[in-house]
């Protein structure tokens, strides 16, 4: 159990206005109790400490799931990531409390904030100090090391059409986002931080680029019905 002080929660610790409260009917007793104690007018600190503990366990769960990819990090560094994730998730949960509609259990709802914070931090950590490939070489796309995979006759035409469309039809921003995320495997949160934008905005750029490619391919008579990526 952590002995660190809880993060500063200025502006988010006061109970939400009554008008903003979601209905609590239909909630399971445990969720109802969480809402009651987090919205109490009196001393909420014990309840907030319990919530932080819950979020920390979820953040540690995420760190443990991913730690095989971080063999070079010490256990302390990993736990530090979990601690920071729990701190940030606590701020988010308290700020978003008025939005909790009781569609799920409170704990499930709260966990997702901790898992998000932990996984974003881990992705950023894994790319720390690495250069992002933002000016891609489109023409080397779909080249393969393995000759048995390389441009099988029936696919060669499709691949070359996609290459051409990426080079000629996408905006420079769409092109670099698409190549970074979908080809070079740059984590979306890493790219979002680098480009000073959000995951949602970046995914929309990726989505628009993909739609444009599919639409043009279909106009040119290609079938784009394929299995989804694994």
């Amino acid at each position, binding site marked *: 159990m952590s002995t660190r002080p809880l993060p500063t929660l200025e502006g988010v610790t006061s109970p939400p206005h009554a008008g903003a409260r979601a209905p609590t009917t239909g909630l399971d007793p445990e969720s109802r109790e969480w809402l009651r104690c987090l919205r109490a007018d009196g001393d909420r600190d014990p309840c907030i400490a319990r919530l932080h503990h819950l979020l920390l366990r979820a953040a540690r769960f995420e760190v443990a799931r991913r730690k095989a990819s971080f063999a070079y990090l010490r256990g302390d560094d990993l736990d530090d990531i979990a601690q920071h994730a729990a701190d940030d998730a606590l701020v988010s949960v308290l700020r978003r409390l008025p939005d909790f509609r009781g569609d799920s259990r409170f704990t499930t709802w709260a966990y*997702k904030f901790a898992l*998000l914070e932990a996984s974003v931090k881990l992705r950023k950590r894994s790319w720390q100090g690495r250069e992002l490939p933002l000016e891609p070489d489109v023409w080397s796309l779909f080249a393969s*090391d393995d000759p048995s995979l390389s441009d099988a006759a029936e696919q060669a035409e499709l691949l070359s059409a996609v290459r051409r469309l990426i080079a000629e039809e996408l905006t420079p921003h769409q092109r670099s986002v698409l190549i970074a995320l979908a080809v070079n495997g740059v984590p979306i949160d890493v790219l979002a931080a680098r480009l000073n934008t959000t995951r949602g905005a970046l995914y929309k750029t990726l989505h628009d680029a993909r739609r444009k490619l599919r639409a043009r391919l279909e106009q040119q008579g290609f079938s784009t019905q394929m299995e989804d990526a694994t």
Partner: protein
Amino acid sequence: MTERRDPHDQLAHVLGPSAPEVGCDACFEQLDRYVELELAGIDADASFPGLRAHFAGCPACREEHDSLLALISGDAPF
């Protein structure tokens, strides 16, 4: 850099899912309920169309979905 060298696989990542999908923000909003429906054996995709396709197109949201599902299905020893 994690390059994908199989052209077919690379193409699938470039073109993304063919089915309509939600964006990352809507995905996050719906994730908790979606996962609880999955665990209850209820058709979560019928209630939240567009999430499954989004997981196919967005590795980050997919990982977070998998983690939340794993966390609550263990009903973690908290």
